[in-house]
């Protein structure tokens, strides 16, 4: 019987040949990733209460990204717990202040096609870009994984999002996701596996694919998946297995789109599902934010730079590159210089404003346009702040115009 990519990945992890959507199985976990906020500070006391040790420290990755830069006693303590705990627990894979976990994890070669992985963060479906079954769980469930190496799963159905053709210049993976979330809603994914397919997806870089899978969280899928191919192999710089679904495998839904018809998208306050094409907006903004795992990777910084080259931002422009390595690469190739020349203020390689952590919060009444994933009321600061979500192209164009603007006019 033909099987979907999700079924194949879950079957391997659960030790069965055929798994049926809806069936509950127990999977062996190949990799568990946590960050400073959901990780050591919550795991340590619970592990002590159980008197238990990690099932396999070599399969655990710890990345600090939420409470950096530490700015008060509480955040310093949270980071210190992470630093101390990795030593106690014997975790070798510890990345301290190297960037946001979802970007650092594949950047340092921890993901490969075929894996079954969990992350202590809702944007963990990012790993699905590498044809790994990866999803987010809470800290107590992570404790269960850390102690047993196993987790239960309801075998998912697959919803296929098939994009023919190719994205137009100035249109990116972020626009694809804002469009899909607007179209299907924040529960459109029904906590099933969402698989992105078609020539337009194959043509995307790994970091763009990561943006698709990342925002499967906002689409309400358990994970987002993309079959592995030569693009995956090139990114990981090692020989990989090709993991793909079988032709004719049963799907819960198969949605087909022409990628070339997609215009840049903007999500208005206070929901990522509140999306319309950029042409319908003219709102003035007073802050532009290029940050987060879903909006400030090297490819995202390049998109912003292609718009900002030789131009100045009219508004406060904040850039928080998603990883230190991406920032260094952007600096070396001149991308970062373009952003700084446009007036960007550089922030740390961490989650920062996206999740309302740290010292930079939106003040009362602020109107911001942001490359981040969520614009829930009060998330990035004051409950009276208005946050619009858009691609790095659109955020950059809006910074230049001082109002929400179509980047295609500046790229022409």
């Amino acid at each position: 019987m033909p099987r979907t990519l999700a079924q194949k990945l879950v079957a391997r992890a659960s030790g069965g040949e055929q798994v049926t959507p809806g069936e509950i199985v127990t999977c062996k976990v190949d990799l568990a990733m946590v960050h400073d906020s959901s990780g050591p500070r919550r795991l340590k006391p619970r592990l002590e209460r159980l008197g238990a040790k990690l099932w396999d420290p070599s399969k655990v990755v710890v990345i600090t990204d939420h409470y950096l830069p530490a700015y008060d006693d509480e955040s310093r303590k949270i980071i210190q717990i992470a630093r101390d705990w990795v030593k106690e627990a014997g975790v070798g894979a510890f990345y301290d202040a190297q960037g946001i976990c979802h970007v650092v994890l594949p950047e340092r070669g921890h993901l490969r096609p075929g894996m079954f992985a969990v992350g202590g963060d809702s944007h963990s479906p990012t790993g699905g870009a590498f044809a790994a079954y990866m999803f987010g769980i809470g800290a107590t469930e992570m404790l269960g994984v850390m102690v047993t190496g196993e987790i239960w799963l309801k075998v998912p159905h697959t919803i296929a999002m098939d994009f023919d053709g190719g994205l137009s210049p100035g249109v990116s993976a972020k626009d694809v996701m804002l469009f899909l979330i607007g179209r299907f809603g924040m529960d459109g994914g029904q906590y099933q596996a969402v698989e992105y397919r078609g020539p337009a997806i194959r043509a995307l870089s790994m970091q763009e694919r990561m943006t698709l899978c990342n925002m499967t969280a906002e689409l309400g899928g358990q994970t987002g998946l993309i079959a592995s191919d030569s693009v995956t192999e090139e990114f990981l710089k090692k020989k990989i297995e090709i993991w793909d679904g079988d032709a004719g495998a049963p799907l819960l839904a198969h949605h087909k789109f022409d990628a070339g018809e997609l215009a840049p998208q903007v999500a208005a306050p206070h929901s990522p599902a509140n999306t319309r094409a950029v042409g319908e907006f003219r709102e003035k903004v007073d802050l532009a934010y290029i940050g987060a795992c879903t909006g400030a990777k090297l490819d995202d910084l390049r998109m912003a730079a292609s718009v900002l080259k030789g131009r100045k931002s009219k508004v406060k422009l904040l850039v928080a590159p998603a990883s230190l390595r991406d920032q260094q690469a952007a600096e070396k190739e001149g991308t970062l210089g373009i952003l700084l020349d446009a007036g960007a203020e550089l922030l740390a390689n961490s989650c920062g404003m996206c999740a309302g952590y740290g010292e930079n919060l939106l003040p009362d009444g602020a109107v911001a346009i942001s490359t981040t994933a969520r614009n829930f009321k009060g998330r990035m600061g004051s409950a009276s702040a208005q946050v619009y979500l858009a691609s790095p192209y659109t955020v950059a164009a809006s910074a230049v115009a001082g109002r929400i603007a179509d980047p295609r006019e500046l790229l022409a």
Partner: protein
Amino acid sequence: MRAWVFGDNVDTDAIAPGRYMKLGIEEIARHCFEAVDPGFATKVKNGDAVVGGRNFGTGSSREQAPEALKHLGVAVLVAESFSGLFYRNAINLGLPALACAQAKRIRQGDLLKVDPLGGTIENLTTGETLECEPIPPFLMSIIRDGGLLPHLEKRLARPA
């Protein structure tokens, strides 16, 4: 128990705002729902129910969201549907979460009698009985133990 009714897509930032996440659960709980229903944390009573529409708990993996509700005394969650990640977190913390297709028939302040095990909600204010999707038995056993942590404690204590 009295019903506290919220709409569709109630997000985890509303339940447990990110800027308080560095603090302990007592402090986080004080700010529960402050952006959408200021004062909720002081008004909600021990044993009350929180009722939502579609996709309740969308957003973050932070389990402080169901933990804050539990800390405030909320005994059960009822919603048309739950975000999958939030649902797992609620169960893992021992807080029953009942998916009920007719959740929107419940009004703010209605008096409810909820049987999580049987999957029924009796609305004492309207006289209606609402059916819920049953919680699978292996998840019910986690709830009965008070959450995944005590459940694991039991499991680890059991001789192999």
